[in-house]
């Protein structure tokens, strides 16, 4: 792939096929931690880090363990275990180095394990038969797209605190409708990358 191809590839992964708004991966933490901007930024950074790292590890597991031993049907179990241990590692490192952020993210850090974006990207990497570099670029770009959507959404949700919202729409219901309109806005980027 040439440089231009990579650029298109990145734009596609960040904006057009946004993993959150177009492919519906990782919606639970999206609605859970998006009430405040600072937790959203922290979560985004954690997700970018974990997705890229998990993408690399699962790719290596797939091509150097599962395929040589002919046990591809155990992919789901292997991948989730790799991701779970990685998240634990990130949690320990974060607890030691940035305790403030660790306290802010609270229970959501272990929840990255069950963030389907992580496992989803790992599986997409294998399904699309990416080579190692493409895999790294795709994982990173998807995660950045996730972070972008999460932070934008948190910015909008902070405004909700000041708005008068009908009682039945409070919380998740309005969050979902807002996410729908954000998704609509993001689908406008589809023209950037020709099909």
């Amino acid at each position, binding site marked *: 792939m040439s440089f231009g191809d990579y650029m298109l590839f990145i734009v596609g992964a960040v904006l057009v096929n946004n993993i959150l708004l177009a*492919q519906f991966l990782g919606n639970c933490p999206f609605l859970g931690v998006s009430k405040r901007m600072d937790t959203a930024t922290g979560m985004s950074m954690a997700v970018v880090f974990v997705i890229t790292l998990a993408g690399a590890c699962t790719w290596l597991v797939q091509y150097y363990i599962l395929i040589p031993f002919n046990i591809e049907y155990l992919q789901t179990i292997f991948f989730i275990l790799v991701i*779970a*241990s990685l998240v634990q590692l990130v949690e320990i490192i974060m607890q030691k180095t940035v305790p403030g952020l660790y306290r802010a993210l609270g229970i959501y850090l272990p929840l990255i394990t069950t963030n389907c974006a992580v496992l989803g990207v790992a599986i*997409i990497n294998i399904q699309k038969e990416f080579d190692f570099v493409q895999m790294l670029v795709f994982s990173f770009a998807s995660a950045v797209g996730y972070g972008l959507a999460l932070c934008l959404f948190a910015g909008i949700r902070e405004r909700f605190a000041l708005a008068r919202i009908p009682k039945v729409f409070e919380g998740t219901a309005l969050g979902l*409708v*807002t996410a*729908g309109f954000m998704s609509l806005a993001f689908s406008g980027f589809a023209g950037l990358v020709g099909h």
Partner: protein
Amino acid sequence: MSLMKEFTKGFWELLPPFRLVLGLCPTLAVTTSAENGLGMGLATAFVLACSNMLISALRKIIPSKVRIAAFIVVVATFVVVVELTMQAYFYALYVKLGIFIPLIVVNCIPLGRAEAFASSNGVLASGADGLGIGLGFAISLFSLGTIREIFGAGTFWGAQVMWSGYEPMAFLLKAPGAFVCLGLMLAAINLISARQAKRKLEATRLAAAQA
């Protein structure tokens, strides 16, 4: 009696994904038709019931420090069972649901129920809880899929149901439509439960006034 209660709470009290706001990804992604929604819901229900029972049976053996990892392995095992079964017998549906079948592992509902219920309750109660919540999830997905399919494509289960001149709202089948439709359904459910709570309050007040 209490088994029945554990079973039925999944249909309204804890109805996922509305009451338990978990498992949103498959809810949004696969409900483009009633059939897909039901397929996904039943696959999740199977995983949920089986994993709940096994985790409950093992709850005294699993050390609490590594319980999450142990739960994930149990859930993942049943997901692989579902994955291989669907590949063998329901291949068309398997292809349509695609990545969301392996993603049942990270659906949060099985894991959430394991942590909240199965790790501290008996095997039968856990099975009832898992099956009830799973079927509730299947019903939610089926209704969301039905609404999106009828208005978005004018069909139900692949058969035309709207009149011939009906212009389908294709918006509902696209990604934004999924979010908006689920948001509106959640608001509707909030409205109904707010009404219910109000009625209950009035009833107790009336009873108190009479006494």
